Structure formats: C-alpha cells, structure tokens
C-alpha cells in the first residue's frame, strides 16, 4: 500500500479519510488536525502559554510533541499519584521525553507529588474514603492541574483527550441521558470565572490509533499498559464497542462526536447559560480558596475524609 499523497510506501491506512500515509505525510496530517482543532474551537493563540497535563501515555506525550513542533509555548505538568509501580514507570517515560525532546524547545516539566502534600498514595486515599479509584484519581488530577495552571499563570490547560475518549464519553452520557454532562462536553471549556483555568482538548480530531501511530513513528516511548486501577472501567467497554463499529463502518466515531459538536453550535445559548450558572453558584472553597459550588470543594472533602480515617 502506498501513500495517498506522495506514493511512497505507506505506514498507516486511515479508512475514515479514505487515505494511507507515509511517516512524513502522516505527521503533516496529524499536525494539520491539531491546527484545525485549535483554530475552529478558538483554543489558544501563538502567544499564549499552555500547560499540558502529561501522564506518560501516548496521547499526552504526543500532544506535547505536536504543540512544541507547531511552535506553541507549552510546558507540562505530571501529577504523581503514587500508584505502586505504575506511577514510577509512567514518570520515567515523561522524564525521558522531557529531557530528550522537550528541553530542546526550551519547555519545562513540572512534577507534583500528591503523596508529599497529603501524606498518602492514591490506593490508600481511595481505600480510606471508600470511593472507586478512578473517580478519586479524576478529582485529584482535575484539582491539581487547575490549581497549577492558575498559580503558575498559564493562559490555558491542555489535556490529551482524543476522539475515542470524547466519543466514548458522549456514548455513556447519551446512554444514561445525562443531559447536564452533555452540556459540559466540548473541546473548549472557557475559564468561567477567576480561579478556573480555560481547558482545551486539541486532539479531539484524532483517534487513539492515530495517536499511538504518531508516538511509534516519532520514537516517543510511552506507557502501553492501562493504569492498573482503570481496568474494567465502563469507558473501556464503550471504546471497544465503538471500535467494532468503526472497523465495520469507518467514520462512525467522527460522525458521532463531530455531529454532536455541530448540534451544540446551533444552540450556543445552552453554553452561555452554563457559564452564567457557573458564575452564579461558584465561590471560593472555605479551605483552599479554589472555586466550588459547595462550601468545601470536592478535593478538600476527599482529603479531609482521608485524614479522619487515617487518624482513627
């Protein structure tokens, strides 16, 4: 099979685009998809400072790589949750990318260790507060990234969510008619008020398969295993189902998610009321000062619970 563009030997076939690309044309394609995402969803401008949330997985490292190569000013933050074995290996991958490649662009890697701050790893925390680990992990990561972005004065926070992540999440929300979450799902979440960083997902036009291929073709060493805590997560099932549909009928994932975004665009009132509602009910957490709808934010509640349990 040859490259659709230059007729050299192809490295990857992209049925949803009726194309196959060699390494160089594929690189061009992926960069182009990110540029399109950034422009069409008004994510950031050339002068903005971006903080990329990196995990050691293919998506976040590919995102950092693409943003740097496109000439964006992007640093990264790794939140070390202290998951035995896994965190150590994933941090190694992030460090190695930062030293080998990112440093050459003048980019910085920030590392934040939760254990140092709160005195417990994620498994302990989760056992103490009796919550499924993935949601504990999500709460901690969201909190830490937002706080770091605000404190270090970044204009925008970027995560490595890809088309598969967004389509799987949309499927889950639709299956359970979680309309409130449907409103909040989009590639750009504006900074709704002081204390909340703007959040963007520049990879929403690329599939997991394309991002894994990008990492492989560019020699980015990433952590292939899923997080040991995430196994059995509902999202993985949705992804598998979508991949079977995609294999039978290429383009399903993008039609599903991009179609949703088109519909959302027609009803912009929903998103502006969302921002207004956020403005109206958010105020600083009485413990840490981060914005929350309750008196104490969910992160502080989690940590408070963990501490009471560890003392008893």
């Amino acid at each position, binding site marked *: 099979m040859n490259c659709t563009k230059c007729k050299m030997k192809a*490295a990857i076939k992209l049925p949803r685009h009726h194309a196959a690309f060699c390494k160089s044309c594929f690189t061009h394609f992926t960069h182009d998809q990110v540029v399109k995402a950034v422009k069409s969803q008004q994510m950031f401008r050339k002068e903005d400072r971006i903080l990329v949330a990196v995990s050691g997985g293919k998506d976040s490292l590919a995102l950092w790589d693409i943003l740097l190569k496109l000439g964006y000013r992007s640093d990264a933050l790794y939140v070390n949750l202290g998951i035995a074995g896994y965190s150590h290996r994933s941090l190694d991958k992030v460090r190695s990318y930062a030293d080998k490649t990112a440093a050459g662009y003048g980019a910085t890697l920030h590392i934040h260790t939760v254990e140092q701050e709160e005195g417990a790893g994620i498994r302990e925390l989760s056992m103490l507060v009796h919550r499924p680990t993935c949601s504990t992990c999500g709460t901690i990561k969201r909190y830490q990234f937002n706080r770091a972005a605000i404190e270090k004065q970044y204009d925008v926070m970027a995560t490595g969510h890809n088309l598969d992540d967004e389509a799987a999440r949309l499927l889950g929300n639709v299956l359970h008619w979680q309309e409130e979450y449907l409103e909040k799902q989009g590639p750009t979440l504006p900074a709704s008020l002081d204390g909340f960083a703007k959040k963007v997902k520049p990879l929403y036009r690329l599939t*997991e398969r394309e991002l894994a291929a990008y990492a492989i073709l560019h020699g980015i060493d990433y952590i292939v295993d899923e997080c040991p805590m995430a196994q059995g997560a509902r999202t993985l099932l949705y992804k598998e189902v979508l991949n079977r549909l995609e294999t039978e009928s290429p383009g399903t994932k993008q039609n599903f998610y991009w179609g949703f975004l088109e519909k959302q665009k027609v009803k912009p009132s929903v998103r502006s009321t969302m921002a207004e509602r956020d403005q109206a009910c958010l105020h600083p957490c009485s413990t840490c000062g981060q914005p929350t709808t309750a008196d104490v934010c969910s992160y502080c509640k989690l940590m408070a619970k963990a501490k009471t349990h560890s003392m008893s």
Partner: protein
Amino acid sequence: MHIQLSHPPRTVDIKGPKRAKDLLRELNLVVEAHLVIRGDELVTEDEMLYDQDHIEIRPVISGG
C-alpha cells in the same frame, strides 16, 4: 513467526506468510484497536508478514 502481544503480555507463534489483517483476524483482534509493528516499523494491514519477522501487535486503547 514470533508475535508479541499485550494485556496480558505474552508471545504466540503463528505460521507465515500471512497478511497483517489476516493475522489480526486469526487472533480475534479488531483492526481499529491495534497496530502491527514489524521490527521497529509500523506496517499497514495489507503487508505480508513472514516466519523470520519479529512482530508486535500493540493495543491502542488506554484507560484512566
């Protein structure tokens, strides 16, 4: 040919020559969720794989 797989990590031996997509089908793996790597190069599904090749089938789904 020697094939390296993940989740769980294991190796299997399968007789070649064989096209990458037929190999995936034989192992009951969905194309959209996997990439085929020969040596250190990524190959398309129509690529013919031979007994002496070292093959890795890498899952692309990640969680968390």
